[in-house]
């Protein structure tokens, strides 16, 4: 609103302060977006050519950043969740075999008290000499009824620690162990050889002269695969029947990431009096590779990406400038139907910013694809900062916006009179 003292010859068109009321022209942001996008997509082929440089530049940047991160973070060997959570403690070898009585009977209980231990149980191989194992003491000359099988003793916690699952029946519990009950679980290999397929008929196996009731048949174990071919009896029963001196090995399942810590604490927790007698087998720390040679290459690629971005910016500026000159008539028309210089400039700025934005999306997609493809080929895990692909369109839009500056100024400076005269 402008105050005009001499003003018009016709009263009645003023507000109460005597100001002339002529509203300026205006454009809603929705219209601005419509006009810019319609202007762009009128010539899609040219737009694609214009954004090509930006696409290449941003793709190079995204791919470089992604690949250097991926290479930095690649882990030698496969990460094995099973191996990474397993610890086995046993006696250190002495001059004549393993040091005796190295593991205490309450080793599983002592280990379970440590934070980070998910399950712990002890396992021991039982030496039964030449004793054969069978289901029947009848000697059948036509087929074998007695077999030479391994016998192992397991503490109640072992089943969880080795991730055992049953085909049928149940695991022996604490009670069986305490009461020295003669029960057994068969590994699937042992069950097949003995011809036992189920526990409903309450089958029994004879170890030497003693009968053991089969209460369960294993389906599989994830650790200690020896168990699959063995007859497994409770630890307490083994102490009573076979004079087991002490557990042979302690199997521990840790929480993910706790293995190395538990491995350090374990000897002291089990044998505070003499931790040196124990041998603890723990998984190796995952190793990360850092390649210094790689980073020199990165700088080169980043420079290349930057150069292509510059070329891309010039490309957008060029195409927008051509469009401004080509659309002189349109600019004149827009001015005639009420566009201000600012409206015209806004439209061309937005057009070039959208071009950069589209280039950024395409570039980010292309760059991400390169990272994934190279990683797949190298069998690496692709690592990409999520910010990078999302930042690319923003960077593209800023580049487009900046490169549209000069053409937009040219468009805004056009005199409508001359623009209209210059044909369509």
């Amino acid at each position, binding site marked *: 609103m402008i105050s005009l003292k001499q003003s018009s010859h016709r009263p009645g*068109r003023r507000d109460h302060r005597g100001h002339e009321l002529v509203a300026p022209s205006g454009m809603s942001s929705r219209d601005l977006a419509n006009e810019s996008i319609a202007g762009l997509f009128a010539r899609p082929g040219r737009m694609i050519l214009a954004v090509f440089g930006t696409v290449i530049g941003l793709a190079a940047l995204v791919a470089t950043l992604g690949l250097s991160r991926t290479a930095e973070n690649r882990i030698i060997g496969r990460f094995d969740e099973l191996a990474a959570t397993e610890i086995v403690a046993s006696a250190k070898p002495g001059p004549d075999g393993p040091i005796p009585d190295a593991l205490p009977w309450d080793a599983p209980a002592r280990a379970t008290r440590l934070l980070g231990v998910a399950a712990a149980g002890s396992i021991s191989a039982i030496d039964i000499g030449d004793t054969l194992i069978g289901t029947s003491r009848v000697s059948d000359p036509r087929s074998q009824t007695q077999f030479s099988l391994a016998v192992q003793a397991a503490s109640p916690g072992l089943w969880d620690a080795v991730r055992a699952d049953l085909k049928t029946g149940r695991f022996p519990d604490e009670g069986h162990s305490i009461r020295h009950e003669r029960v057994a679980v068969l590994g699937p290999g042992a069950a097949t050889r003995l011809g036992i397929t189920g526990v409903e008929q309450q089958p029994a196996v004879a170890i030497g002269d003693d009968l053991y009731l089969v209460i369960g048949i294993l389906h599989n174990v994830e650790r200690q695969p020896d168990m699959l071919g063995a007859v497994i009896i409770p630890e307490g029963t083994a102490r009573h029947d076979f004079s087991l001196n002490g557990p042979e090995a302690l199997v521990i399942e840790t929480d993910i990431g706790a293995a190395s810590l538990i491995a350090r604490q374990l000897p002291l927790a089990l044998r505070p009096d003499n931790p040196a007698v124990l041998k603890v087998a723990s998984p190796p720390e995952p190793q990360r590779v850092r390649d210094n040679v790689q980073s020199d290459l990165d700088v080169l690629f980043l420079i290349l990406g930057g150069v292509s971005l510059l070329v891309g910016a010039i490309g957008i500026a060029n195409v927008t400038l051509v469009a401004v000159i080509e659309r002189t008539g349109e600019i004149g028309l827009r001015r*005639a*139907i009420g566009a201000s210089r600012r409206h015209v400039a806004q439209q061309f700025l937005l057009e070039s910013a959208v071009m950069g934005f589209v280039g950024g999306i395409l570039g980010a997609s292309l760059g991400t694809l390169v990272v994934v493809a190279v990683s797949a080929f190298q069998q690496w895990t692709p690592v990409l900062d999520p910010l990078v692909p999302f930042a690319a369109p923003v960077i593209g839009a800023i580049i487009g916006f900046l490169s549209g500056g000069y053409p937009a100024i040219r468009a805004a400076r056009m005199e409508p009179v001359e623009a209209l005269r210059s044909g369509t």
Partner: protein
Amino acid sequence: MADPVGPVVHLVGVGRRFGTEPPVDALAGVDLSLRNGEWIAIAGPSGSGKSTLLNVIGCLDRPTSGRYFFDGIDVAGLSDKQRAGLRARGIGFVFQSFHLLAHRSVLENVMLSEVYRKGPHAGRRERAADALAQVGISHRADFLPTRLSGGERQRAAIARALVTRPRLLLCDEPTGNLDSTSTENILGLFEDLHRSGLTIVMITHEHQVAERAQRRVNIVDGLLSEAT
């Protein structure tokens, strides 16, 4: 725009000097008053200053001397933006070369007129369709301008000028690119619009075209004279 009684266009001693060396007076003291509903033809040879006059009347250019009142408003006192607002709401332009956007349908071209006037989005399409019906080319609404004949293109351009219901229709050689049949059709359309009360300023160098107007003025060397 409000009061329909006073003159729509009122020029008092309007001059436009271009700052070349030596300076050129494209307009020299033009007085012109145009009542509401008048149809005036401004005729003159090329270089006579008629385009300059059109630009001044259309608020695209400012006079260097004299006063110009559009619909009672002193245009000299307005900012660029306010004059743009005046163009968006008060003046419809029709050009010799149509100036239709080649990549938009006829209907979208007509809708373009409302983009800069801060009007409501709702009903824009309907108003554009009405304007196309008014000039008799509803059946071409979804065509691209390049598929239209010259006469149809000019009708589309006139629809674009009419859709904002302007106070003044400003035509720069509206029949300059048309054959005689199309010219006759367009002039017939102008007669209809004139009868419906629209104020029309038409610049032309063709006498047969100028003669169709209700009032004729000649311009020679920046000076206006009423023709009989």
